[in-house]
């Protein structure tokens, strides 16, 4: 194939990819905007409260642009976003961009550690369960997985606080840091573990890690439950294939059969599972954030939504959506890298 045609083909693929990402983001923006406008809540209430005079109410309504037709409101908003301006949050009075920069790292730190726990413990658990199907390791992983699926995260969070924090005193309490250490390290990335390591502040690093342990453990458990179940099911599918029987017939060690041959093929779909699990932790850990007083993006978007703080809701949703799309894209690329057949 001539080199120029190959480049053309790649350019076409990437253009389509970019176009689909932009279209998805626009769709997300439009859907969120319309949903927020359809809900029967008056956004002016969030600004002026319940008892403002009729004049104050009207003034704020005009300031918010709510007196304009909905398509004008949407057009104005899109124009702002294209200039990198998500507007100002009604509740925090900050630029939404600043708020997201403050709340998102807290969630990223928590979700990353939780996913790491889920991957490091969940994958071996799933592989072992598949290899010992029907025996006690499999039953154990199944029970753990079932509990992870069925126990409400809110309850598990509270129970873990009660046991490990209040009763045993093994873990630090809610919040990202001890309150007297807040602001001890200037934010660089917003990820306290990294910022304190960069600053060489051991006390803050230890406090951050101690505070992360419980919420990350709780979320990590749910991630573990999901990843181990999926790993087990993918592995069982592979272990029934003929190439595995061939490998065993050739006298390869069980370890090699499991990890090199079967797991090598499981890795491909597993990447998507891990990426989706990570993405869902980024936007879906509101309850954990509430129990652990964790100032994350989930709580921020939920609080904003309940107050119809539209700029914050749209900005937050767009950023989380972009991350979701980014992770999907990353898993697609990894897919192509791991599986030569998809290239």
């Amino acid at each position, binding site marked *: 194939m001539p080199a120029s045609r190959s480049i053309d083909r790649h350019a076409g693929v990437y253009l389509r990819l970019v176009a689909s990402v932009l279209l998805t983001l626009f769709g997300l923006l439009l859907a969120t905007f319309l949903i927020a406008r359809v809900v*029967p*809540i*008056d956004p002016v*209430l969030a*600004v*002026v*409260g*319940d*008892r*403002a*005079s*009729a*004049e*104050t109410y009207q*003034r704020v309504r005009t300031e918010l642009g709510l007196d304009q037709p909905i398509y004008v409101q949407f057009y104005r908003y899109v124009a702002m976003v294209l200039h990198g301006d998500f507007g100002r949050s009604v*509740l*925090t*009075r*900050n630029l939404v961009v600043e*708020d997201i920069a*403050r709340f998102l790292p807290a969630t990223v730190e928590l979700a990353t550690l939780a996913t790491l726990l889920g991957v490091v413990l969940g994958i071996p658990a799933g592989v072992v369960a598949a290899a010992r199907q029907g025996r006690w390791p499999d039953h154990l992983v199944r029970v753990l997985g079932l509990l992870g699926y069925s126990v409400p995260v809110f309850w598990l969070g*509270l129970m873990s*606080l*009660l046991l490990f*924090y*209040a009763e045993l*005193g*093994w*873990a*630090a*309490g*809610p*919040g990202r840091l*001890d*309150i*007297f*250490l*807040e*602001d001890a390290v200037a934010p660089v990335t917003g990820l306290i573990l990294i910022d304190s*390591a960069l600053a*060489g502040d*051991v*006390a803050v*690093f*230890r*406090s951050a*890690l*101690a*505070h992360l*342990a419980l919420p990350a453990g709780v979320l990590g458990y749910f991630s573990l439950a999901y990843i181990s179940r999926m790993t087990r099911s993918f592995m069982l599918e592979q272990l029934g294939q003929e190439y595995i029987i061939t490998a065993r017939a050739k006298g390869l060690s069980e370890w090699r059969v499991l990890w090199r041959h079967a797991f090598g093929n499981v890795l491909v779909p597993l990447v998507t599972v891990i990426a989706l699990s990570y993405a869902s932790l980024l936007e879906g850990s509101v309850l954990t954030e*509430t*129990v*652990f*007083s964790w*100032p994350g993006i989930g*709580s*921020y978007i939920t*609080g904003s939504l*309940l107050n*119809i703080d539209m700029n914050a809701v749209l900005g937050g949703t767009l950023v989380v959506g972009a991350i979701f799309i980014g992770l999907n894209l990353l898993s697609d690329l990894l897919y192509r890298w791991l599986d030569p057949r998809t290239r």
Partner: protein
Amino acid sequence: MIAPRAALIFALFAAPLGSPAQAAAPPDAIVMGKGIDDIVSLDPAEAYELSGVEVVGNLYDRLVEVDPRDPAKIKPGLAVSWRVDGAGRTFTFTLRRDARFASGEPVTAADAAFSLQRAVRLDKAPALVLQQLGLDKDNVAKRVRAPGDDTLVVETARVMAPSLVYFCLTAPVASIVDRRNVLAHEEEGDLGNAWLAGHSAGSGPYSLRLWRPAERYVLDANPDYWGGAPANRHVFVRHIKESATQRLMLLRGDIDYARDLDKDQLDALARHPHIRIDHGVQSLVTYLALNQRNPYLRRPAVIAAIKHLVDYDGIERAILGGTRIVHQSFEPRGFLGAIDEQPFGYDLPRAKALLASTGLAEGFSVSIDVRNATPWTEVAQALQAGFAQAGIRLEIIPGDGKQVLTKYRARHHDIFLGEWGTDYPDPHSNAEAFALNEDNSDGAAKKTPAWRNAWSDPAMNARVAAAMVERDAARRAELYRALQRAHQETAPFVFMFQLVDVAAHADTVDGFVIGPGPAENRYAGIAKH
């Protein structure tokens, strides 16, 4: 650089293995756990939410203050004395000379005039308290003036009860700000509003070190405060929404005060040997509102029957215990002229007879809008069970707080279960809300609860207007007592409970003052032993 790196690596591995890292709490710092995500601004001209006005109350002084021990009384603030002229419209305040702002500047009458003018000009939500005095953007410069360094004059638009004027001036919106400091931070003619939302410029016992929305705020004590230095140096308030989390942190000693404990958490702490629980009745009342546009709810016998179908004591005991007390009139307990009579109780035969008298012996169906949050859904369920005994089929429509409020303000509800706090600690505040409705049209400017329920009673309107201008305090109190009794008999409002603000703390710390409203909650006395 090897040593710090080695220390860091050691810490990395040691942290999760050892006991949790704990930064030692300074003995003069107080830590509270509280839900503070309602704070929108800490500018006194704008703060209107429960948590926000509490902070403003501790950062700023006002000309006069409510006496926390007797909320029907006024005590000196920045003003040492005050008087009203014979015509009853001109109020003159003499300011103390020893008060200084945190910036070091002395507090003058010019600052006080600027502060009141500023709040009216900014026209944010709490401006309605000052508008009550007849102040608006056009007349405020003329009606609020400082003829001398320590003399402030406030002229009302019409004759008003002096106590009403003074109580309006105890509200957070009437806080005195440092004029020079605020104007130095003015942006695009905003009178410093954007800056003051997250900073402080007051003469109160504290100044604001920082406020991170929905995370925390930190106050630093003002050691030179004219009223005496606070007993602590710093107050840290962390946003902890979950009641159970607050309890666990209190028990571990990570917070000194837990501020939002619900009934279950309070029950769990009640017998703890080292935990104390402070209570204070506050001015928030819980009520049912019956929309007069509903053909059933419009009938006087139905209104009376519903008042006898609420199991006030049972709900207080089983659902609200410790956080609300039974209260059956619109004026909060402790206010000037408030009555504490409880003419209603769960009386099924009487309710049935009343319904039968209006041809509704078989009952009827009606809906109730309620915030989808504890304990309100539980209260609605209890009401549903009680109403059902008399044949009233109550459909519960839960919704988010603002969603329910939007519907209520649009007069689209049947029954609304909600709470109402006073704007200022004068009886007119709630009398105006629940008894006054002079324009019942859809486009009315005033959307008080009376309007929201399409209830307008000309006789009631006249009584509210008369009580508002009565200059004799004793006679005024009597007018409000009579007004509440008449209201209890006929109004489509069922007042049920009054808020009890609760603060649980370790026995090694005390001194938090729970005032008659959140704006009067004070941190300055809190000390660790």
